[in-house]
């Protein structure tokens, strides 16, 4: 679907860049992750030809699960045409020669940074999340040795204390993205820096959710139809972001919006962050008489 002709696959490199042994090692770790939803599995992360922090974890997972028949979609901030999404999509088009798409329903594997598509996901689809800091307790307890013990003991009191302190200080829970969730009633998990707006989409999703942190060498998973609950209190229930405005392009009133400053006077416009969702809606509106 890209305008540019892309060579079938990069000479001198294995299918999807990583060697088969490495991919097998990652798939084994993924099986463990699926078996223990929300648990961070250490894996022998490799150095990738993209910098750490730019999606190396997600790329390794994508490389490990990608087959020749897969159709890959890559988004960053919800958009298919942001530079890093373009770069990663190109990488797999070059090294694996797989088909790519911008349409959410057509994709079998969707690698993402910071968003879950607005279009509901279907069974059989796999979401691959790029994760910077996999540890939800990290900013409360900097030591990995400690946080692993806390997970083992399900010692999550500090997390609720943090949220409570937010309410005491600000009157609201002051976490707006990377909002912690409990997976399958057991592990507290960082859903990656998606806005909390996307958290409800994780709950009982028919798609398989895989999370990869390259620098930290951790991966974790949420299997299809797994309960995912955002942490909250009875008197301060979890809430998602809302806008007074609608999308300036497609008019959507219930999608996540990006704010654009359009002139020197600071005038604002809001548009859908999910470019595919927005384009599909705009197209439907045009085709309607």
């Amino acid at each position, binding site marked *: 679907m890209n305008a540019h002709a892309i060579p079938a696959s990069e000479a001198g490199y294995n299918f999807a860049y990583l060697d088969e042994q490495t991919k097998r090692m990652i798939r084994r770790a993924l099986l463990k992750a699926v078996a223990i939803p929300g648990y961070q599995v250490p894996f022998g992360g490799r150095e990738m030809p993209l910098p750490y922090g730019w999606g190396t974890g997600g790329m390794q997972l994508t490389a490990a699960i990608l087959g020749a028949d897969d159709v890959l979609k890559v988004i960053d901030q919800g958009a298919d045409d942001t530079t890093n999404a373009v770069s990663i999509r190109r990488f797999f088009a070059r090294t694996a020669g797989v088909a790519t798409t911008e349409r959410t329903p057509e994709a079998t594997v969707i690698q993402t940074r910071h968003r879950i598509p607005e279009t509901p996901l279907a069974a059989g689809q796999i979401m691959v999340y790029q994760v910077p800091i996999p540890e939800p307790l990290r900013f409360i307890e900097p030591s990995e040795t400690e946080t692993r013990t806390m997970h083992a003991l399900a010692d999550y009191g500090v997390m609720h204390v943090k949220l409570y302190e937010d309410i005491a200080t600000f009157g609201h829970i002051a976490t707006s993205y990377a909002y912690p969730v409990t997976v399958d009633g057991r592990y507290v998990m960082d859903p990656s820096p998606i806005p909390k707006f996307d958290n409800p989409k994780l709950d009982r999703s028919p798609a398989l959710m895989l999370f990869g942190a390259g620098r930290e060498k951790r991966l974790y998973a949420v299997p299809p139809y797994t309960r995912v609950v955002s942490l909250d209190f009875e008197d301060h229930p979890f809430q998602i972001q809302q806008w007074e405005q609608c999308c300036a392009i497609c008019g959507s009133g219930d999608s996540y919006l990006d704010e654009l400053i359009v002139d020197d006077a600071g005038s604002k416009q809001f548009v859908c*962050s999910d470019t595919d969702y927005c384009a599909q809606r705009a197209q439907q509106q045009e085709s309607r008489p």
Partner: protein
Amino acid sequence: MYVAVKGGEQAIDNAHALLAKKRRGDTGIAELGVEQIRQQLPLAVARVMSEGSLYDEELAALAIKQAAGDLVEAIFLLRAYRTTLPRFAESLPLDTGAMQLSRRISATFKDVPGGQLLGPTFDYTHRLLDFALLAEGERPGPPVDESATLGNCPRVLGLLGEEGLMTPEIDRGEPVPDLTREPLELPCSRAERLQALARGDEGFLLALGYSTQRGYGRNHPFAGEIRIGTAEVWIEPQELGFPVCLGEIELTECEMVNQFVGESAAQAQFTRGYGLAFGYAERKAMGMALVDRALRAGEYGEEVQGPAQQEEFVLMHCDNVEAAGFVSHLKLPHYVDFQSELELIRKLRQPQAEQTEADAETPAKEKRA
């Protein structure tokens, strides 16, 4: 209105073409050859090989050229290449005692068997810009005595060890894990720690080592010995059953003699910090040795007081490829997250604004009362 934040393929291609142009500089000036870099910037090559964890002078020089002299970028290039290489064997432990030395000094004894060998060094040079180099003047090397030979140079800490003054390092024959293949799990073994430090950023280790000298985890170091030279690399393939020599590599080794430990005064022994780097890399090896010793605090029952003594802190932050990547990722678009922060901060300010208005309506007198 989308253009400012969305780049697309053409913009990426153009950016890379511009980079190539910047790297090349003025085309009226002869292009820098990889072999020139290898021969004339050997210390840069050494650093890239060490922290890139790949001993290949030509590829390191290529990486430096491609990175336009940005050594951290060059290290990253070499690492990304290294990760695609198969591991066909593990070498036998290097015998640095049998190194062909080009430099060897000890700060602990005025003279040692084999002698002090200054070799090529910046030490004792006056740091005056040499304008002769600006004029591209050739410098003749020192006079060479063909008949000169180097005596046996046993390791200085070995001599102390024979006297029972050094805490012995015991090889338990445990398998050595490979950091580049297995995730680092903490707390980790000294072998893993040394691997991480060997790949660690020179500047970071230098600063941490320096911090121990200034009191953040002091360990009273002496430069017991610094050896620079070439050592042979041997492997023993299973199908052969006997070792074969692959070739030789240049190494810098630093052994620090540090404050003593012991159950009682009579059993007091010095301790050791160890540093090893590819090529001529004295600063790196010394920084590494200081930090290695600092990280042995737990082993010797010392109180952890400084950052250099905290294993997790040091090991999780010493890798410059990881650090540079994660810092540079801040350049990636974050407007989805930022939007959620904006939404939140506006929401938080709302009740506050109402409160301020209410305050403004209250007469000043009442407020004072």
